[in-house]
């Protein structure tokens, strides 16, 4: 494994019943970073995470988890929240958290103590001895998240952690992720909600149709697109029009176009010298969503938006 990487995967391949699900994925997650895997449903995010964790074996390729080629050897240092949440319904919350810790080598007594602290610190002290089946879905999900971190792992893997949570709990989860990262824990999570990745991640991988379309810093993804200019002028025509790029479009009295390679200053100078009569001029940096559309394609972006909307409706 390369130094400073918590996860490194090269050429991961996986097919189910002859249909390729993941087609040669390379990932490098630096230690202590928050890393997002973005992609629409069925892109191969969960399969990739399951291969990284050793739940399933790849058909080809290599992976290393905290320096271990056999992921289960690093199990004590890893926390995992799967996409399909699961807890024993009859178990009490404290026991459920302690049990998940015990699976990762944490002594049960320590697990119980930490579980109690986690529950009380998060306003769930009244639920310490309540069975899981008596909790709401969101609360049960929170319990499972506590079970994921109770043994203080060095690496936390979260598969679609925000799905099923209301806005308040999504905010709490974001807070928790930031806290864990600040404490030096590496966090990798998959999501189809772009703004979570945009707010949290330093690095991302964009996956579509089982392939990595982009891997790198969020800023690098954004920088793939030129900044966008929105311009309103008093003059409708004149010499200044020559300063606009050929694909500039007039919509609702505003010109929209990509910032020319020369930058803002030459554009501004040409507009002023051409007596455009600038009423409004704004230069907008493209968001991750725009970058995603450009990288993964319109169809993938639409799919993700629909999935996000469907979840919000639910």
């Amino acid at each position, binding site marked *: 494994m390369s130094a400073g990487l918590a996860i490194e995967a090269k050429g991961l391949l996986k097919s189910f019943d002859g249909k390729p699900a993941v087609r040669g994925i390379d990932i490098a997650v630096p230690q202590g970073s928050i890393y997002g895997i973005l992609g629409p449903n069925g892109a191969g995010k969960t399969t990739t995470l399951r291969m990284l964790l050793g739940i399933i074996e790849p058909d080809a390729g290599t992976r290393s988890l905290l320096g271990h080629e056999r992921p289960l050897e690093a199990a004590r*240092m890893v926390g995992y929240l799967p996409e399909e949440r699961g807890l024993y319904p009859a178990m009490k919350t404290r026991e459920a958290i302690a049990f998940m810790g015990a699976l990762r080598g944490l002594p049960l007594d320590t697990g119980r103590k930490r579980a109690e602290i986690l529950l009380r610190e998060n306003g769930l002290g009244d639920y310490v001895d309540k069975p899981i089946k008596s909790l709401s879905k969101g609360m049960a999900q929170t319990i499972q998240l506590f079970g994921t971190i109770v043994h203080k792992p060095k690496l936390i893997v979260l598969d679609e952690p925000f799905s099923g949570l209301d806005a308040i709990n999504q905010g709490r989860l974001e807070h928790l992720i930031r806290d864990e990262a600040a404490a030096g824990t590496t966090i990798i999570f998959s999501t189809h909600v772009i703004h979570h990745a945009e707010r949290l991640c330093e690095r991302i991988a964009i996956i579509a149709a089982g392939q990595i379309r982009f891997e790198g810093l969020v800023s690098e993804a954004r920088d793939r697109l030129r900044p966008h200019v929105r311009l309103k002028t008093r003059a409708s025509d004149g010499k200044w029009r020559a300063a606009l790029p050929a694909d500039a479009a007039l919509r609702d009295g505003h010109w929209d176009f990509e910032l020319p390679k020369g930058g803002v200053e030459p554009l501004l100078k040409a507009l002023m010298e051409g007596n455009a009569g600038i009423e409004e001029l704004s230069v907008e940096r493209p968001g991750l969503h725009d970058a995603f559309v450009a990288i993964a394609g319109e169809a993938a972006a639409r799919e993700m938006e629909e999935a996000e909307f469907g979840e919000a409706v639910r």
Partner: protein
Amino acid sequence: MNVIDSAWVIARRDFLALVFSRFFIIFLLAPLLLFGFSIFFSMATRAQDRAAAQPVVAMIVDGPTADALAQTRQRLTANTSEQTFPTLRVVAPAENLAAQAQNLLADEKGNYSAVLSGTLERPVLTGPRGSSDFVGRRMQLLVDESRRTAALDQARAAPAAQPLERVVTEQAVGSLHSSRRALAQGAQVLIFMITLMLATLLLSTLVEEKSNKIIEVLAASVPLDAIFLGKLMAMLGISLVGLALWVGMLGIGLTLFFQLVSGLVALPQIDPAVGWPVFVLLLLLYYTANYMLLGALFLGIGAQASNIREIQTISMPVTMLQLMVLLLAFMTVGSAGGLLYWTGLVFPFSSPMSMIAMAAQSPSLWPHLPALAWQALWVFIIIRLSSRMFQKTVLKSSAGGGSIFSFRRKAAAKG
């Protein structure tokens, strides 16, 4: 964590979840209730069955003949049993004896098997012969004995009244072999019954994890072998708790029963060839081995099912398989060689039951060591195969290559 530590975490959770569930009491009481009901109904129906099965012979004979036959029957049944001879019932003669005999044999209420007429010198038995001619042969005995007694009475010669002299010994080879065979089969049935009761539980034990999606968390944390082994250990613990309770209750019941009847009947003396302490230890070991072998197999089969309906579908063939294994083990009792004997000993699933039969009948101890090692090897093989199959078909993952015996050292990560 190594496989055993991980298995222990799983086993502990499963064991406590089952013990503290409200159904555990039902699980514990079910065999006792079943046993109690069986005894009650068998006692209640035994008298009726015996009465219904006992042949009845109508006697259309003169008074002295009827008395002679009745006395002979009474004398002989005193030393055998009431079922040894047909019941005799005196019927007053009618004018047409042949027609009366036919009417009696057709009489639904009378339930006669035959009709005896004539005298002791010229008796006539009317009725069907039957496959074994039980009634004919026993009536011939009664008539012969009655004639002999009558002849002795006429000669005023009293029969020799010298009682049989008894020299009492501890044991005889014939009865020892027979009691050990009974013990061997009893031990086999005990192992079989308890494993049979747990078969459905074992088949369905992974369904909870699959339906609750917990399997994903488990599979990401511990090796699949540990999940399978842990589940087996938990169920073994459950069965041992049950076994301790059932055997304890049975022991108390039998002790009380034998104290009550000890003055009335001679208790059978059963002594296993290896002695009781070793036999009990071997019984526990072979029960564990049998449970682990079949348990690993059922767990593996059950792991492939995705819901309870599929489990129910699998249950019947699994029970048939267990019965076939029991029959194979039965073949080894009282046998000392031959293909079936060796198959029973070597075939992994029948080996524990065959070996406990050997412990009851043969004093050799050394064969038990290789047998237990052989069975442990198969437990290991089946767990590995089951977990690999689970990984391949349920988790849809290639099993990672290598043979089932291949291990790479699982370094304990420091974390």
